[in-house]
C-alpha cells in the first residue's frame, strides 16, 4: 500500500517494540530504528519482575492498577517469556508488620489478589527464606526474560509488516519549513553510511534517552534517567519473587532468574545514561539486603552486577517519590512541533499499555480510526524475529 502512513519509531526497547506491534496491527507501516539491537538499553537490563502491583498499591495506586491489569494481559499473550511462579511479600521486623494493614487495604483497592499464608508453609515452599520471617503474603508476581519479551513484541510486529533496523542510530531529526518533524537522519553503524528516512510521524520511544532526541529539535521531555544497581548471585536459591513488605525502598526485591537470584535496586539521578559507573558501596549494600531476605546468599558467589537507568517522568523530586506511571507527550501540544510524539516513563510490565496510549495519539493525529487489539493478540515466538 503506497499511501499507507509511515511512522518512524526510535528505540527498540520494550516500548518501541510494543509500539511497532500495535502500529502494525492497526495497519500503519512502522520502521524501528535503534543504535543498538533489541533491548540494548534499559529494557534489557531490567530486573525482570513482572509486577503484580503489590509494590505500588499503597503509595502509587495508579501504577499498581496498571501493573495488575498488564500483568494479567502479558501472562496471556506472552506466556513464552514469563516464568510465572508467583511471589511473596515478607515482613522481617515491626515496621514491616505495621505496613501490613496498609498493604492489605491497598491491594484490595487495586484488585491485586493477595493471600496471607502461614510462615511455616512459606518456609516449606521456599526453604532458603529468612527463618525469622514474621508474616508472608503471596502475590501474583512473575519473572520475565527481558530480551525475549522485547523480541516477542518485535517478532510479531515484523510478521505484521513492521521493519526493524538495529544498529541504526538517529543522529538528527528532519524538520520541514513549518518547523515540524518529517523524518530522521540515520547512521547505519553496520555499513557505516548515513542516510535520511522520511515518515509521517516520529515516535520517540527512547526511554531514558528521550531528552537527547527531543533536544535535537529544542523540544522538552521531562525525563530523568534514574539508574539503580542490581547484583546477581550464582545459585537459584528461590523459585518465587521475594519482596520486602514495606514502602518501596532500596534492595528490597530478590528475583530468581535462570540459575541465579538477583537483588535490586537503588535509585539516583544522572544526566547521561550512556555509561554509568558502578559504585562499590552499592554492591555491598545490595549484598546485605539480599542476605537479609535470603541468608543463603552468603554461600553463593557474585555472578554479575549491572546498572539500569529508569526513565522517570517529572523533575524536582527525588527518584523514589516520582510516579512509576508513563507519559505520552504530543510535542504539538507542548512545544508546537508537529510530527513528533514522545513516550517515556512507565515500566516493562506496562509496556503494552504504553504502546496502546501512544498509538492512540498517533492514530488521532494521522486521522486514522483503528481499534487497539494488542490485549487479545498473542505474541508469536520471539525467535521469529531473526527470520528474514
Amino acid at each position: 500500500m503506497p499511501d499507507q502512513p509511515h511512522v518512524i519509531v526510535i528505540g527498540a526497547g520494550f516500548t518501541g517494540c510494543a509500539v511497532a506491534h500495535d502500529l502494525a496491527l492497526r495497519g500503519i507501516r512502522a520502521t524501528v530504528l535503534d543504535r543498538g539491537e533489541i533491548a540494548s538499553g534499559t529494557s534489557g537490563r531490567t530486573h525482570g519482575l513482572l509486577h503484580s502491583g503489590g509494590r505500588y498499591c499503597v503509595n502509587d495506586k495508579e501504577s499498581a492498577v496498571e501493573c495488575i491489569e498488564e500483568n494479567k494481559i502479558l501472562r496471556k499473550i506472552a506466556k513464552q517469556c514469563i516464568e510465572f511462579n508467583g511471589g511473596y511479600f515478607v515482613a522481617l521486623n515491626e515496621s514491616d508488620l505495621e505496613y501490613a494493614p496498609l498493604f492489605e487495604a491497598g491491594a484490595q483497592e487495586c484488585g491485586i489478589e493477595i493471600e496471607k499464608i502461614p510462615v511455616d508453609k512459606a518456609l516449606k515452599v521456599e526453604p532458603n527464606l529468612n527463618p525469622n520471617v514474621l508474616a508472608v503474603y503471596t502475590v501474583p508476581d512473575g519473572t520475565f526474560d527481558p530480551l525475549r519479551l522485547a523480541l516477542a513484541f518485535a517478532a510479531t510486529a515484523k510478521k505484521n509488516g513492521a521493519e526493524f533496523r538495529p544498529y541504526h542510530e538517529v543522529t538528527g531529526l528532519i524538520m520541514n519549513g513549518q518547523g515540524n518533524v518529517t523524518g530522521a537522519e540515520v547512521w547505519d553503524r553496520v555499513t557505516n553510511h548515513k542516510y535520511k528516512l522520511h515518515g509521517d510521524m516520529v515516535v520517540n520511544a527512547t526511554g531514558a534517552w528521550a531528552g537527547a532526541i527531543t533536544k535535537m529539535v529544542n523540544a522538552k521531555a521531562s525525563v530523568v534517567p534514574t539508574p539503580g544497581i542490581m547484583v546477581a548471585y550464582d545459585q537459584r536459591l528461590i523459585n518465587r519473587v521475594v519482596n520486602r513488605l514495606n514502602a518501596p525502598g532500596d534492595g528490597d526485591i530478590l528475583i530468581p532468574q535462570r540459575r541465579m537470584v538477583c537483588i535490586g535496586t537503588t535509585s539516583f539521578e544522572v544526566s547521561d545514561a550512556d555509561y554509568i559507573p558502578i559504585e562499590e558501596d552499592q554492591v555491598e549494600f545490595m549484598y546485605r539486603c539480599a542476605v537479609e531476605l535470603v541468608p543463603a546468599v552468603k554461600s553463593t558467589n557474585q555472578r554479575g552486577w549491572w546498572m539500569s537507568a529508569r526513565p522517570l517522568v517529572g523533575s524536582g523530586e527525588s527518584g523514589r517519590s516520582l510516579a512509576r506511571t508513563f507519559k505520552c507527550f504530543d510535542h504539538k501540544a507542548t512545544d508546537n512541533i508537529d510530527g513528533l510524539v514522545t513516550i517515556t516513563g512507565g515500566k516493562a510490565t506496562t509496556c503494552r499499555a504504553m504502546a496502546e496510549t501512544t498509538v492512540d495519539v498517533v492514530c488521532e493525529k494521522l486521522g486514522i480510526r483503528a481499534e487497539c487489539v494488542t490485549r487479545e493478540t498473542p505474541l508469536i515466538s520471539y525467535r521469529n524475529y531473526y527470520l528474514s
Partner: protein
Amino acid sequence: MIDTPSVPKPRESTWLWLFKIISGLLIVVFLGIHFVVNHLLAPQGLLTYEEVILYFKNPIVPVMEVLFLVFVIAHSLTGLRSIFLDLNPSDKLLRAVDIVFIVAGVGFAVYGIWLAWVIASTSV
C-alpha cells in the same frame, strides 16, 4: 510458524552409526581374543612362514581372523564415510563413494577369506 521438519534423506542414520559403534566394540573383543590365542598358540610370535602356516592349522584361528577382518573392514569404511561427510559431498558424490566403499569392502573381505583359506589349506 516453524515446525519440526521431516528429513527425507538422513545420509547417516541410527543403523549405520550403531553398526559402526558395535563393529568397533567387536574389534576390541576380537583383538583381545587374538592376543590371547596368539599368546597361547604362538608364544614366540609369528615370524616365519612355517609358524604362520602351523598357527592356521588350529581351526579357531582362520574363523577368528576372518571375523576380525570383516569387522575391521566394515568399521574402517563406515568410519571413512563419516570423515568423508565432513567434506560436504553432494548427494551424487556421496552415492558414488558409497558404491566404491561397498565394492572395496566386499572385495577386501573376499580377498581376506580367500587368503585365509589358502593359508589354512597349505601344508608345510
